[in-house]
């Protein structure tokens, strides 16, 4: 035996790189298969692969693995929402004031439509409000990935990205403002209950501001060289994601603020836009597989009606706001309808918001999950198809590109 001691123990202990690599390969193949054999967007294939690997089906990705992989999810969301924030041009909002009005209207209508529907279905107000808040957000990852894959460009695309930024931040702020009520329900003292949302919001904004200031100082020193700036930006983004996590702040809000400031306070145009290219795809893939693995379908049986109501109310709320207000912001009515369809996807960010709530108050969080997660499951699979359809129908996707 001793002369064979160079052989590893059996079965070998597989480390994170094995997991990472295997996930990438499986996701790639699943995405390609979905596109080739079913004409579905590749994202749907990634998510399906995650569902199959996840606890719901084969259990190859157990709950522990998913918890360990949360850092990859945060990193992916961080990179994506940074770009989302960076694409948000405040000058445009100032010149076209109907645009922020429409964006806020889109968020508010969706929130109240879901909230009202859930109240009507006799859910507790606090639960209904938390679910409605999460439901307001569009998946930043789905819209971003589809914009890259379809090389989409145009008014629907630009507004889809802008409105996604706004509704994600809106969702987070509303959810955070609900915290004091949650705390009080759980008999936490008043000052502590009030301080928590203040800490989260102010802390996240400050973290984003510091990250932006540091990036600008370093970028000035590096000069306008795309390769150096690329590494700088990725480095600060990853670092900021880590810091936000360590301080229990919101990765999403921190990175949106970082991106938005990087675009808008950089008056001398020191920064060059971050182009992730193929490297970005790696994170997208991982994000969608892990989201797929985190999806839960169990709630359908229990609350099928609530889930259906949630999804319909969400769409109706968004569409109503866009059709009513879109024209004033310079969007033709047909395109406003397509924009509402494009904003359907939900995914990783919603999962993260539910998980964070579970982390704080497990019982409440699980109640929330039973409504939200089933809707996320549906919209994570159907959402990308809707967005792809909308961008194509608006004529903003690359005609030759059959991907998605």
């Amino acid at each position, binding site marked *: 035996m001793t002369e064979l001691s160079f052989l590893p123990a059996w079965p070998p202990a597989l480390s994170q790189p094995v997991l990472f690599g295997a996930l990438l390969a499986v996701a790639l193949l699943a995405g390609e298969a979905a596109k080739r054999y079913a004409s579905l967007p590749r994202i749907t294939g990634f998510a399906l692969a995650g569902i199959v690997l996840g606890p719901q089906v084969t259990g190859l990705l157990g709950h522990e693995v998913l918890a360990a992989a949360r850092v990859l999810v945060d990193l992916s969301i961080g990179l994506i929402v940074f770009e989302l924030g960076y694409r948000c*041009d405040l000058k445009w909002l100032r*010149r*076209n004031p109907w645009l922020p009005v429409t964006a806020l209207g889109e968020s508010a209508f969706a929130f109240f439509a879901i909230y009202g529907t859930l109240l009507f279905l006799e859910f507790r107000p606090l639960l209904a409000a938390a679910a409605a808040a999460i439901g307001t957000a569009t998946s930043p990852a789905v819209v971003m990935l589809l914009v890259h894959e379809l*090389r989409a*460009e*145009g*008014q629907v695309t630009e507004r889809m990205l802008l409105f996604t930024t706004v509704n994600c931040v809106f969702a987070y702020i509303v959810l955070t403002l609900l915290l004091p009520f949650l705390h009080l329900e759980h008999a936490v003292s008043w000052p502590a209950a009030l301080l928590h949302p203040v800490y989260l919001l102010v802390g996240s904004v400050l973290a984003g501001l510091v990250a932006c200031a540091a990036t600008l100082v370093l970028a000035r020193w590096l000069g*306008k060289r795309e390769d150096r700036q690329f590494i700088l930006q990725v480095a600060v983004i990853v670092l900021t994601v880590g810091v936000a996590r360590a301080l229990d702040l919101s990765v999403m809000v921190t990175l949106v603020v970082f991106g938005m400031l990087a675009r808008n306070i950089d008056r001398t145009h020191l920064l060059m836009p971050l182009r992730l290219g193929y490297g970005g795809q790696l994170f997208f893939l991982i994000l969608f597989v892990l989201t797929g693995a985190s999806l839960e379908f169990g709630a359908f049986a229990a609350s099928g009606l609530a889930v259906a109501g949630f999804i319909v109310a969400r769409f109706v709320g968004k569409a109503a706001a866009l059709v009513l207000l879109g024209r004033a912001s*310079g969007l033709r009515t047909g395109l406003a309808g397509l924009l509402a369809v494009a904003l359907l996807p939900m995914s990783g960010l919603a999962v993260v918001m539910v998980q964070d709530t579970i982390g704080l108050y497990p019982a409440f969080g699980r109640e929330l999950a039973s409504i939200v997660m089933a809707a996320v499951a549906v919209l994570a699979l159907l959402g990308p198809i809707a967005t792809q359809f909308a961008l194509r129908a608006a004529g*903003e996707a690359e005609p030759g590109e059959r991907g998605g």
Partner: protein
Amino acid sequence: MAEQSIAEELRFRNSEPASVGLELELQLVRRLDGDLARDAGELLARLEARKLPGAVKPEITESMIELNSSVHERYATLRQELELMRDAVVKEAQMLNLRVSGGGSHPFHNWVERRVVQTERFRTLWERYGYLAKQFTVFGQHVHIGCRNADEAVFLVHMMTRYVPHFIALSAASPFSQGEDTAFMSSRLNAVNAFPLAGHMPFVQDWDEFITYYRKMRGFGIVHSMKDFYWDIRPKPEYGTIEIRVFDTPLTVGRAALLAAYAQALVAYHIAERPHEPLRAVYLVNNFNRFEAARYGYQGDLVEPYEARTKKIGEDILDTITRVTPHAAGFEAADALGELAENVRRGYTDAAWLRERYKASGSLADVAREAAQRWAAQA
């Protein structure tokens, strides 16, 4: 049937002598990164709703639009109208988060990414010319000058060909292409040269001879309409003009108006004094002069075909301006020509400005942004 349509197509509408109209091809630029945008359709839809004195039209790719002025006798009214149209276009573009820019080429866009506008004419061009059609995402200014009759148009095409290097050197605004410094002052002309029907009008003596030539080309099946000729200067019977097409779109509407005034003055001079008769040698030296102008601008050599001697293009422009300025009085453009001459003396071209901006910032995205800001500035 075909005969009748040719006669109709070539029926020359006489117009006021030396009246002027402009077409300007403009770039649509994204605010995000300075690359070309693809929102021509939306922008045109918005502009349609506004009452503008001229017209705004689609061009071959979704990254371009074309402004057409109405017909003007005087420099001042042309300039005013261009400023009005510029302000309207810039304002509507802002609502869509777009910039609009002059310049003969976009400094770094990748032609592969351009999308051809889906109308029948543009699709046909794309099918016939392949990548040339997309590489033709360059931006020119076309100046129409009115002619009293068709024979005068033929005469003026021959006369103006002598000045093609002037037009190129004065308007040059495309030093960068596909992310590189081309070393040319106007790289745009190289994109035009690739087309089989680029070049110049044949050396015909009058309109009858031109009609014979055109019939022959139609008979060969080489052309189907006058639009198929991509000549530097071509007669445009339905407008009653000659159309000078070698200008890069300048960085400002002010310069566009100056260039139009110069062309107008040249025409007025040639009609009033008739200093030369058409000369075949003009076409012998044309390609050489044209290259010198596109490559070196004012510093290029110009072979003077009538006197068979060589001089610098800049020097020849200054001499010419002096000669034609008296004829600019009719449309109140003497001061404008003075301004143009001053530019030449200082060695100013839009191409030089773009290179200078690149030197200062080191980023072509900055160059694209600053060029668009300059276009939008009310000066």
